[in-house]
């Protein structure tokens, strides 16, 4: 069993890598990279060489290539030779200006050195010659540039990405000579009396703590970095984007870390559990209130994050679906070809055949006009009511599919010998259907339970769009429309991991539920 699981996990990791590779090839190599400038105003405003240079900086930011500007290189070499005073050196100024002269620049020794050094490393040298009007005056943006450009190797890109996927916090993370002690240890949490793990020299002050916010236990040991957004959430980490609550911060009376126990309360919105190391100079305000340099924290926000919104809606819909779908399916099988079966079948046909977009809108129209429920998420006067319609519209298809399969498997089981035997023993129909058949029919459905729970984390595309839910469902589609390569890769990794995990968990649950099924190749009736 252990060997089997290990093999399974290794294979899953392999397929995850291949999926990431395929998607990276799709977005980086098969799509024209110019599309990232479609909606870029800065790009539109720039001219000539400056525009090309701007393109290179953006390509570097998006991870297409790496490049070195000659003037940066010059600055670096002169600093190494002359120290910080290099900017006043006449040679430096002269060398910096040489690239503006298209016919002379190649003879400059520094330029030759630059070319030689970077061509050895596989870079190609690109010279953007100065653009001038006919009278010799430079056109706007026509300044010359000398660049060394290197396209990123797809394989290297993936290795880089995988390397940065997880970062672990250590006590030597912060570079600060004045830091007297470095440690990670258990301590009593001054805010709630429970224990916590506090670090010094780490990036976060608290590495493990408890509080009243879902999921109640929080850790800062390992950070998952799925990538950075380029356009949709400029420059932010995607993991942060989806887990940070969206809303206005609320302040309350709190004791600052230095003042705990003094009873001096001050109004602040900062959550002191999230304090991070502050590398810049401390203000007097901070010095009075913080015992150390951990002074930056997140604000408390009384709202759900994107992923929480999606998960809440999804998990409630899933629970409702199982609570309704399974019993109705059993009932339909028990009263096959009677009225309830016919009504149920009509519902199943409706949901299966009609485009999901159509019935979501139909139910939205009914919900908003007949029951006066709020339509758009942001405009709801009572926030909790806004969750009702999205939850229902997510549950509708799930109920239908559970009903369909439960009915099908129940009917398949109804002619089995054990049912005839149970009947001959005088068991009531209720008992036969309720416990014996349904238990066996459930075997086929157990496998899908982890998938439907984990699936809640990915959100729902149409439902969230129709009701304008601030969830994660539209992350991928928005990223595709905005050519946000970072988010596309992040979504792929996230979805793939969840789906692989769901299948493994499903298999384990199945083996647990039905002892006849063995995942071991040597046992059981494997084909």
């Amino acid at each position, binding site marked *: 069993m252990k060997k089997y699981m290990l093999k399974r996990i290794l294979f899953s990791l392999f397929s995850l890598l291949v999926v990431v590779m*395929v998607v990276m090839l*799709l977005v980086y190599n098969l799509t024209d990279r110019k599309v990232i400038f479609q909606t870029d105003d800065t790009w539109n405003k720039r001219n000539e060489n400056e525009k090309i240079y701007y393109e290179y900086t953006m390509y570097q930011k998006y991870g297409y290539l790496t490049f070195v500007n000659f003037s940066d290189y010059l600055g670096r070499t002169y600093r190494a030779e002359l120290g910080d005073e290099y900017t006043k050196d006449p040679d430096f100024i002269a060398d910096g200006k040489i690239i503006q002269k298209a016919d002379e620049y190649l003879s400059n020794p520094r330029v030759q050195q630059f070319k030689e050094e970077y061509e050895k490393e596989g870079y190609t040298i690109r010279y953007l010659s100065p653009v001038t009007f006919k009278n010799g005056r430079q056109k706007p943006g026509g300044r010359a540039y000398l660049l060394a450009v290197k396209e990123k190797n797809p394989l290297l890109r993936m290795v880089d990405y995988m390397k940065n996927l997880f970062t672990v916090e250590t006590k030597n993370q912060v570079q600060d000579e004045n830091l007297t002690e470095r440690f990670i240890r258990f301590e009593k949490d001054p805010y709630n009396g429970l224990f916590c793990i506090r670090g010094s020299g780490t990036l976060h002050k608290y590495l493990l703590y408890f509080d009243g916010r879902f999921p109640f236990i929080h850790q800062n040991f390992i950070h998952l970095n799925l990538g950075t957004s380029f356009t949709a959430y400029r420059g932010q980490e995607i993991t942060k984007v989806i887990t940070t609550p969206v809303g206005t911060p609320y302040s309350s009376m709190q004791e600052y870390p230095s003042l705990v126990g003094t009873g001096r309360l001050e109004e602040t919105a900062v959550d002191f559990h999230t304090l991070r190391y502050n590398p810049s100079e401390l203000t007097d305000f901070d010095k009075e209130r913080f015992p150390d340099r951990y002074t930056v924290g997140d604000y408390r926000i009384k709202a759900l994050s994107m992923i929480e919104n999606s998960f809440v809606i999804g998990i409630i819909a899933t629970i409702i679906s199982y609570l309704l779908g399974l019993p109705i399916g059993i009932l339909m099988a028990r009263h096959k070809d009677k009225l309830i079966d016919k009504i149920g079948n009509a519902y199943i*046909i409706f949901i*299966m055949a009609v485009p999901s977009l159509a019935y979501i809108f139909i139910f939205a129209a009914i919900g908003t006009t007949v029951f006066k429920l709020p339509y758009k998420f942001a405009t709801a006067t009572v926030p909790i009511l806004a969750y009702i319609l999205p939850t229902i519209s997510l549950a509708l298809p799930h109920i239908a599919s559970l009903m369909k399969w439960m009915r099908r498997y129940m009917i398949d089981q109804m002619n089995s010998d054990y049912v005839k035997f149970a009947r001959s023993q005088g068991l009531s129909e209720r008992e036969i259907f309720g416990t014996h058949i349904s238990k066996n029919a459930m075997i086929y459905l157990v496998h899908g339970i982890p998938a439907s729970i984990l699936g809640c984390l990915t959100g729902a595309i149409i439902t969230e769009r129709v009701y304008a839910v601030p969830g994660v469902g539209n992350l991928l589609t928005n990223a595709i429309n905005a050519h946000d390569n970072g988010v596309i890769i992040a979504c792929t990794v996230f979805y793939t991991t969840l789906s692989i995990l769901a299948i493994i968990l499903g298999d384990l649950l199945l083996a647990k539920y039905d002892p006849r099924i063995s995942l071991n190749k040597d046992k059981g009736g494997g084909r």
Partner: protein
Amino acid sequence: MNDNEKLVPVKDESGFRFISNDAIDSERIIAPRYSYWRSVFRVFFRKKTNTILLILLVLMLVSSFVVPIFAPYDYKENVTEATMFNLSPAKAMEKTGGFSFKYLLGTGSLGNSILYGIFSSAKTSITLAVICAAINMTVGILIGAVWGYSKKFDQVMLVIYQIIANVPYILLISVLVYIIGSGFSSFVFALTITGWLGIAYFFRTQVMIIRDRDYSLASKCLGTPITRVVSKNILPFMISVISTLLATELPSYISMEVFLSFIGVGLSAEVPSLGRMIQQGQMAFRTFPWEFWPPVFVSAFITIILYMLGQNLADASDPRTHM
């Protein structure tokens, strides 16, 4: 008595007479004539609803393929006349002078006729569904049959399946549409390049179940060639599976087109499609309901008919219902 000896008929006074015992004739087995497909259709048409559904299907096909010839749809025909935008049926007819078939359902956001748009879009949707289903089902079933039968092929295909199934298909389609354009044929290409894989996987499991049945094993032991085992032992079982697949596949492409247009990676504006109409109508579906509900109901109508016909055909194709 010797069997081969012919008995001579002897006249008997009681009226009985001897009949010769024909040894060759007695070996012949007489069974009622049975044609599989005739029984399928007999069972299929036993249900009254199927006849009605078929009539509706024919009506739908005729209207979506014949009407656009007489009522060509051009979404830009009134694009320069802002007064024609977003008109309700009553207002549109008032404006164009009396009753007109063209403005029976009002006008859209660019002054386009909703009714004509629906006929042309239905044509696109049905064509798309039929072409995609035909390609995906053919490829999927052929590969799925081999996949299910050959254990070596199974191992390779499972790896490929796990990888391709995990590439988000929205991404794949949008990248493909981006590379090869968003016309009708490239959209078909995008939907079919990996679309067959799911069908093949489903089919593989079905084939595996039948493959290891006792009678198949018996055939194998008796030395029946693989082609005969596949065509005589496995495929007949698959007909009801195939029709069930068809019942879900055909409507699924119409739904898929609607969904992809809704999220913005669908067909180009030049190709009239139900998804695009719904997507345009949904932005103001309360103020201009005539732009939104007609395409929704038409797409629902088409998919329900196709689904029910397919399901009923699947029921009829199961030999156990032929008794």
